[in-house]
């Protein structure tokens, strides 16, 4: 059995991490989840830095950890590489020596190791930095070298822990491209932990969503993110989500309000999903065709690049579940409407823009 096969159970202070993860050889899986959901714990167990209460980790058929038989290989013998937020390049070695570190630790002769290192650096587009020390590299350049270094050690599994979180906005898309290209070219099995849905979309074949130590969503990236079944996933994907019960006319929320949309699975728990860009904001009751108009009050205004994301909160007389919904407006529109926290508004979204699909198995709130 190739790739990663892990079953891990670790009791922590506030929750118990209990997951089963399968990653096929050459596949890239992204793990999303709010802070405290167990992502770092999972990575720690896979890397061999933490021992699970119960569990088994195997990569390419090799058992790395098994509480049943007492196997626990130390990090040096696991063949699990790590690329973290902080490149952690050895400050006293050049980029080339950094990348050659893995091969040389495996006993490869210096000349051959340097060759391998140069090849890897070229792969990530960092060949010209070979003789520079880490202090002379930018964040993006350092992460490239760190990626080359991790790959040069020929890991059976590569773990990426929010690898672009410390980079500035311009460097991130470039790095994402590099990582995607290299992972694909080398056919590496990889597990990526991230907050950024763009990372998942760019790099991962599949996405797992962790909440309170359990996997609540698992599926192809595009599918999970465009049809989120939990509030967190929706938030990560930048979408609005309302949960309730399926109805021929759309979705019926717990308090009885109907959210008009295409037909939902009748009687079954379902979620209605729509984009903030499709939500219109009125200060007086709307005119026109939209059938979905809900009363709310402005809770916050968040600048998002060229748009302003208006966050709503419930208002007496309106539905409670509008809290947390977002509407994207231009700054001009916000100014015209004189919106500020506390302003009573009406949110409106066309039925055609709302998708309803079955809810996730875990609590969708």
């Amino acid at each position, binding site marked *: 059995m190739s790739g990663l096969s892990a079953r891990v159970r670790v009791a922590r202070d506030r929750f118990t991490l209990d997951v089963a993860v399968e990653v096929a050889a050459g596949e890239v899986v992204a793990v999303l989840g709010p802070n405290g959901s167990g992502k770092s714990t999972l990575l720690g167990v896979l*890397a061999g830095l933490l021992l699970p209460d119960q569990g088994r980790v195997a990569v390419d058929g090799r058992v790395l950890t098994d509480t049943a038989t007492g196997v626990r290989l130390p*990090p*040096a013998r696991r063949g699990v590489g*790590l690329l973290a937020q902080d490149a*952690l390049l*050895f400050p*006293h070695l050049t980029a080339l020596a950094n990348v050659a*570190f893995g091969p040389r*630790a495996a006993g490869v002769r210096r000349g051959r190791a340097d060759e391998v290192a140069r090849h890897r650096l070229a792969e990530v587009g960092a060949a010209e930095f070979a003789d520079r020390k880490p202090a002379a590299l930018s964040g993006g350049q350092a992460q490239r070298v760190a990626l080359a270094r*991790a790959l040069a050690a020929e890991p059976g599994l590569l773990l990426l822990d929010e690898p672009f979180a410390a980079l500035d906005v311009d460097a991130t898309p470039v790095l994402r491209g590099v990582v995607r290209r290299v992972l694909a070219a080398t056919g590496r099995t990889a597990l990526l932990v991230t907050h950024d849905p763009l990372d998942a979309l760019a790099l991962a074949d599949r996405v797992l969503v962790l909440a309170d130590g359990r996997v609540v969503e698992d599926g192809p990236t595009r599918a999970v993110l465009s049809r989120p079944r939990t509030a967190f996933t929706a938030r990560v994907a930048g979408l609005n989500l309302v949960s309730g019960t399926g109805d021929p006319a759309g979705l019926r929320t717990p308090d009885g309000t109907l959210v008009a949309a295409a037909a939902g699975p009748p009687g079954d728990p379902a979620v209605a999903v729509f984009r903030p860009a499709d939500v219109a904001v009125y200060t007086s009751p709307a005119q026109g065709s939209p059938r979905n108009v809900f009363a709310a009050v402005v809770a916050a205004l968040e600048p998002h690049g060229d748009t302003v994301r208006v966050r709503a909160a419930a208002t007496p007389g309106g539905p409670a579940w509008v809290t947390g919904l977002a509407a994207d407006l231009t700054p001009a529109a916000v100014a015209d409407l004189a919106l500020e926290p506390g302003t009573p508004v009406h949110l409106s979204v066309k039925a055609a823009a709302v998708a309803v699909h079955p809810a996730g198995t875990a609590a969708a709130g």
Partner: protein
Amino acid sequence: MSTRDRRVRTGLPVLLWVPAAVALALVVLPVIGLVARSDLSSLPARISSPGAVAALGLSLRTAALSTVLCLLLGGPLAVVLARSRVPGVRVLRAVVLLPLVLPPVVGGLALLYLLGRGGLLGSHLPGIRIPYTTAAVVIAQVFVAMPFLVVGLEGALRTAGERYEAVATTLGARPWTVFRRVTVPLVLPALGSGLVLSFARALGEFGATITFAGSLEGVTRTLPLQVYLLAETDVDGAVALSLLLVVVAVAVIAVARPRALRGQR
């Protein structure tokens, strides 16, 4: 072409210069007094007398050897203290400081009662005499100088943390490789300073040496012992040798410190 630092400094309280100047004076003025008191014309003759030459050679040889021993023994100790998770490590850390607080003569006596003929260990080593030998000088110097190396190095190791070592293990490096290629290079600057301090302390060591190793020209009479002896009858000679000692110490520090400092970014 260097760029002058044009940043406006937030300012050192001017008042600090007063005690700082007093401190500097306390260190520098006695040495100046020594120079002023000495008869510079007779200096060359005094420092090239057989006793002086023997003492200088002995001092340099023993201090160098002691420093190497401090490194070979104290270095691993520092790593163990900084990285080991064995319970009781904190007590060990305090114990290592003992030679720093013991008066050197007391240290010498302790060594005598341990390694002398009738000593705890010495009595089990028939035929091997340790006191009165050059080896005893080295032992005394290592005893007093090693804490300087251990404390400095251990502090640096603890500050540096273990992140780089953790990365190295995920790259497949075994513990000895990690130590050799990651841990050691990263603490070299601190190591450099520690070695310089140890050397200086070993060079100036007096009380433990005279009590444990004794005082015999060419064998155990290091430069500080020679100075003390000369002070009995030939104060000018003692002053001349003291200046020699100061010059040697300053030379070593001047050569070694800048390199150690440059390593620290």
